[in-house]
C-alpha cells in the first residue's frame, strides 16, 4: 500500500512537472490520478495481454505483459545469447547459419502473429532480419525460435514478415534493390536504374507444422520497399507494399530520394501470381540460401543449403502489380479490419491518404492509369483515393485500427498519436508522446478483429523520461487506455534494443498451450543419457564425448580424469528433471563460448577445448535447490603424452583411506 501511495504521489509530481515543463498540446490527456490503478496488476496475478516487441538492433524479440509493462521474456532469434547458450551450444549453432556462414547478429524490426480467418491465433510469431535477409518463425508453445529461412535476391529485408489472413504466406520485400544473386553484381553503383531490381518473396507456411518454404519471388522495379500489409476479407488475395526512392537514387537518399511529390503503394494480386506459377510461367534461378529448423524432439537444429528459387517477372507477367501514387516516401501501409481501406503514411507528408479497395479494382478494370513506371501500370491517384485526412499532424508513420471504425496514426515529426474516423476522415482526438513515436500497437490491431482496450506507442527518443544512465538510455514504450472516447496515457515502460513494430494478443490464446517441460522419454538427441546409469565418457581419437546428466543437485559424472591437452571435449548434458521451471545451467572454466541452459528433459552440448594442463571446475549456473552451490565437479587435464587413464564417476572417487574404511 505504501508503494501504491508513493507511486500515485510520484505520478502527481510527474504530472505537475509536465504541466510546467513540456506543455502538452492537450492538457486533458496528461497523466491523471487513476493511471496507476489502470496499469496495476497485483503481485501474483497475470496480465491480460502478451505484447511482442521487436528488439531492433538487439536481434531478439521481447515479450511484455500488458497492462503492467512487465518484461516476461527475451526470445533469442537472430543474435547469439550466451545466457541461454543460443548460437553457442552445438545444437543451436545451425540456427544462425546463412549462405555467408554463421552470422551472430541481426536487426529484427517487425514481429507478426499468425492468423486464422484474419484473427490472431496464438500459434506462431514471425520476425524479420533486416541486415542479412531472413525470416524467423517462433513457436509460441515454447517461446523459442523454431525455424529461420534466408532470402536470396534480397538486401535489407524490411517490408517483412507480414502475413495473409490464413497465414498462407509470409512476405519479405527487399528494402535495398540490388542486382539479382544470379546476375553480375560487380557493376558501377550509379547504374541503379539499369541493373538494380526489387524482389519480393512469398514464403509459404505449412498449415499444421508451420514449415516455411519460398513459394516464389516477384521481380519488381528497383525501388525501396518499406512496409506492407495483406488485404483481408474482401481484399484477401491482394498485398500492399509501400515504396520509396521511386527516384531510384543510389546516393544521398536523404535528399535524392525525397524529390518526387509522390512515391507509390504497390498493390500485388498474389492470387494472380499463383495462377502464373501454376501455369509454369515462373523461371527457376540458381541461388544459395540457408534453411534452418529446430527439432523439439532431438533438441537439435539442422541447417541445409538450398539452391533454387522460382521467379515471376512482374514486367512480363501482367496484372500482378499496380502502383498507386502515395505522397512523400510512405512508411506504413495499413489495411483496416474490413479490408476496404488502405492507409498510406507518407513520413514527409502533412496529410493521410486513404485508398479504397473497391475503387482500386474499378480503376484497374477501367484502365484508369496515368502511365507506367518501369513496365508497371500506375493508377491515377484520384481513381484509387477514398479521401484524405487533412492536417492531422506532421510525418504520419503507422496506423492501427480499433475495429470500431477508428484509426490511430503515429506522427513522428510532431510526436503525437491521432485518432480519426475512417468513414468521415475527421480527427477525433490527439495525444502527445514522449518522444518521437515510431510504431503503434493495438492487440489484433492489424487483423480483422482488434481487441481495442489498450494502445502502445513505441518511441524513438527517451531523453528525460527515465533516470540518466550515461549516454545511452533504454528505449521507451507508452501505454494508453483507449477504451473510452479519449486516449489516456497510463504507463511508461523501458524496452530492450529498439522496439519498431509490435504485436499484442489476449493471454488466453497462448498461456494454456505453453510447454512446461520436455518429456525425457521422447528425447531423441543422439547424445541423450536416459538416466544416470547411462552416463559415460567416450574417447574417439582426440574427441571426448561426455554423456552427462543433471538433476537437483548433482551432475553425473562429476569427476573426470584422463583428458589430455589437444583433446576436444563435448559435454552432452541431459536435464533429467520433469517439472516446470527447473532448468539446470552448465559452465566450465576457460570455455571460450558460453554456458548451457538446459530445460527439463532436454539435452544440450557444449564444446570445450582445454588450453592448459590443470584442474578445471564445472558447476550449475541456475539456482536449482538448497544444495545448488554443491552442484559442481572437476575435470583433470593432463599433458598430451600423459598415461592417466580416462575415468569418470559420481560419488565414488574417494581418497584411498576413506575408500578402504568404507569397505
Amino acid at each position, binding site marked *: *500500500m505504501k508503494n*501504491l501511495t508513493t507511486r500515485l504521489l510520484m505520478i502527481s509530481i510527474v504530472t505537475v512537472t509536465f504541466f510546467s515543463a513540456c506543455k502538452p498540446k492537450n492538457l486533458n490527456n496528461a497523466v491523471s490520478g487513476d493511471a496507476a490503478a489502470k496499469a496495476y496488476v497485483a503481485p501474483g496475478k497475470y496480465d491480460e495481454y502478451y505484447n511482442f516487441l521487436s528488439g531492433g538492433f538487439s536481434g531478439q524479440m521481447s515479450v511484455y505483459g500488458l497492462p503492467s509493462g512487465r518484461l516476461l521474456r527475451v526470445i533469442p532469434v537472430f543474435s547469439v545469447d550466451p545466457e541461454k547458450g543460443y548460437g553457442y551450444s552445438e545444437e543451436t549453432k545451425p540456427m544462425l547459419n546463412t549462405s555467408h556462414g554463421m552470422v551472430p547478429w541481426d536487426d529484427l524490426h517487425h514481429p507478426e502473429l499468425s492468423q486464422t480467418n484474419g484473427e490472431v491465433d496464438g500459434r506462431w510469431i514471425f520476425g524479420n532480419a533486416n541486415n542479412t535477409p531472413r525470416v524467423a518463425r517462433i513457436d509460441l508453445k515454447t517461446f523459442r525460435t523454431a525455424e529461420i529461412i534466408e532470402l536470396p535476391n534480397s538486401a535489407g529485408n524490411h517490408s517483412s514478415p507480414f502475413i495473409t489472413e490464413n497465414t498462407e504466406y509470409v512476405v519479405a520485400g527487399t528494402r535495398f534493390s540490388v542486382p539479382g544473386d544470379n546476375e553480375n553484381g560487380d557493376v558501377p553503383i550509379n547504374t541503379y536504374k539499369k541493373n538494380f531490381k526489387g524482389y519480393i518473396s512469398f514464403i509459404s507456411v505449412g498449415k499444421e507444422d508451420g514449415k516455411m518454404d519460398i513459394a516464389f519471388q516477384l521481380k519488381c522495379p528497383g525501388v525501396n520497399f518499406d512496409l506492407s500489409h495483406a488485404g483481408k476479407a474482401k481484399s484477401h488475395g491482394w498485398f500492399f507494399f509501400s515504396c520509396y526512392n521511386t527516384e531510384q537514387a543510389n546516393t544521398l537518399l536523404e535528399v535524392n530520394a525525397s524529390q518526387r511529390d509522390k512515391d507509390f503503394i504497390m498493390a500485388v494480386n498474389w492470387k494472380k501470381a499463383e495462377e502464373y506459377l501454376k501455369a509454369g510461367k515462373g523461371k527457376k534461378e540458381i541461388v544459395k540460401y540457408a534453411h534452418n529448423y529446430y527439432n523439439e524432439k532431438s533438441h537439435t537444429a539442422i541447417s541445409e543449403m538450398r539452391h533454387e528459387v522460382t521467379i515471376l517477372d512482374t514486367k512480363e507477367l501482367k496484372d500482378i502489380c499496380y502502383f498507386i501514387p502515395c505522397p512523400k516516401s510512405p512508411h506504413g501501409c495499413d489495411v483496416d479490419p474490413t479490408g476496404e481501406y488502405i492507409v498510406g503514411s507518407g513520413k514527409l507528408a502533412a496529410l493521410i491518404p486513404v485508398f479504397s479497395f473497391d475503387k482500386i479494382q474499378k480503376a484497374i478494370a477501367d484502365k484508369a492509369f496515368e502511365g507506367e513506371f518501369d513496365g508497371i501500370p500506375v493508377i491515377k491517384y484520384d481513381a484509387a483515393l477514398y479521401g484524405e485526412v487533412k492536417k492531422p499532424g506532421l510525418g504520419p508513420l503507422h496506423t492501427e485500427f480499433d475495429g470500431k471504425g477508428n484509426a490511430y496514426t503515429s506522427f513522428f515529426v510532431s510526436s503525437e498519436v491521432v485518432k480519426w474516423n475512417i468513414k468521415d476522415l475527421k480527427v477525433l482526438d490527439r495525444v502527445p508522446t514522449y518522444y518521437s513515436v515510431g510504431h503503434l500497437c493495438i492487440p489484433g490491431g492489424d487483423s480483422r478483429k482488434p481487441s481495442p482496450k489498450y494502445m502502445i506507442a513505441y518511441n524513438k527518443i527517451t531523453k528525460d523520461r527515465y533516470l540518466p544512465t550515461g549516454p545511452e538510455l533504454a528505449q521507451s514504450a507508452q501505454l494508453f487506455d483507449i477504451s473510452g472516447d479519449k486516449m489516456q496515457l497510463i504507463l511508461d515502460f523501458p524496452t530492450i534494443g529498439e522496439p519498431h513494430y509490435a504485436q499484442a494478443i489476449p493471454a488466453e490464446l497462448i498461456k494454456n498451450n505453453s510447454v512446461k517441460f520436455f*518429456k525425457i522419454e521422447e528425447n531423441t538427441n543422439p547424445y541423450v543419457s536416459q538416466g*544416470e546409469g547411462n552416463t559415460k565418457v567416450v574417447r574417439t581419437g582426440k574427441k571426448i564425448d561426455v554423456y552427462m546428466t543433471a538433476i537437483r543437485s*548433482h551432475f553425473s559424472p562429476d569427476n573426470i580424469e584422463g583428458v589430455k591437452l589437444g583433446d576436444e571435449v563435448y559435454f552432452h548434458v541431459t536435464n*533429467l*528433471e520433469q517439472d516446470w521451471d527447473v532448468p539446470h545451467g552448465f559452465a566450465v572454466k576457460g570455455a571460450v563460448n558460453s554456458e548451457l541452459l538446459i530445460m527439463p528433459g532436454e539435452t544440450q552440448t557444449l564444446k570445450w577445448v582445454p588450453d592448459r594442463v590443470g584442474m578445471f571446475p564445472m558447476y550449475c549456473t541456475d539456482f536449482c535447490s538448497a544444495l545448488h552451490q554443491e552442484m559442481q565437479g572437476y575435470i583433470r587435464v593432463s599433458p598430451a603424452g600423459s598415461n592417466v587413464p580416462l575415468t569418470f564417476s559420481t*560419488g565414488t572417487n574417494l581418497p584411498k583411506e576413506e575408500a578402504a574404511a568404507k569397505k
Partner: protein
Amino acid sequence: MKKLFAICIISAFMSACGGKTSETDEPSTGESSIEKTSDGNPSYDPKRGTGKFTSVDINPKLDVSLADSGSAIFSVKCGSCHKLTGEKLVGPGWKGVTSRYSAVWIMNFITNTDEMLNKDPKAQAQLEICLVRMPNQNLSDNNARSLYEFMRQNDGVK
C-alpha cells in the same frame, strides 16, 4: 487524501481479484492433521497422504513385467537420487520403503509430490533430513504403479 484514494483502489482490487487459489498454491502451514484434503475429506489420513489414490490393487505375487517397467523408469527418473539399498544418497534409500509406508501413501507421494511435501508429516520429516525437495517427475498413474511393483521386488516380494 491521496492515502484515502489509494486505500479505495486497493479495496477495489481486493474485491475484484480475490479469486480462488488452487490447492497446490496454498502456502505450507506445517500443520496437516486438521486440514481438508483436496478431495474434501474432513480429516487428514496420514496413512493415505493426499492425492488421487485411495486404494491400490495388489496381488500377493509379484507382477514381474510390471516390476521390469518400474525398473526402467527408476533408472531414468529416480536412480540419480535414490539407491536401492537402505543408504541415503540425495533422498532416502529404497530398501524397506514398502514396509515403512502404505502402498497408497507411496503412490500419492510420487504423483503428488509438491502437495505431500507441503502437508504430510512423514514427508516433511524426510525433507528435514534430506533438505532437497523431491522433484515432481511427472509420473503417470501407470508409471507410479510400475514403480511401486519395482519397490516390492526390491523389498524381496517374489
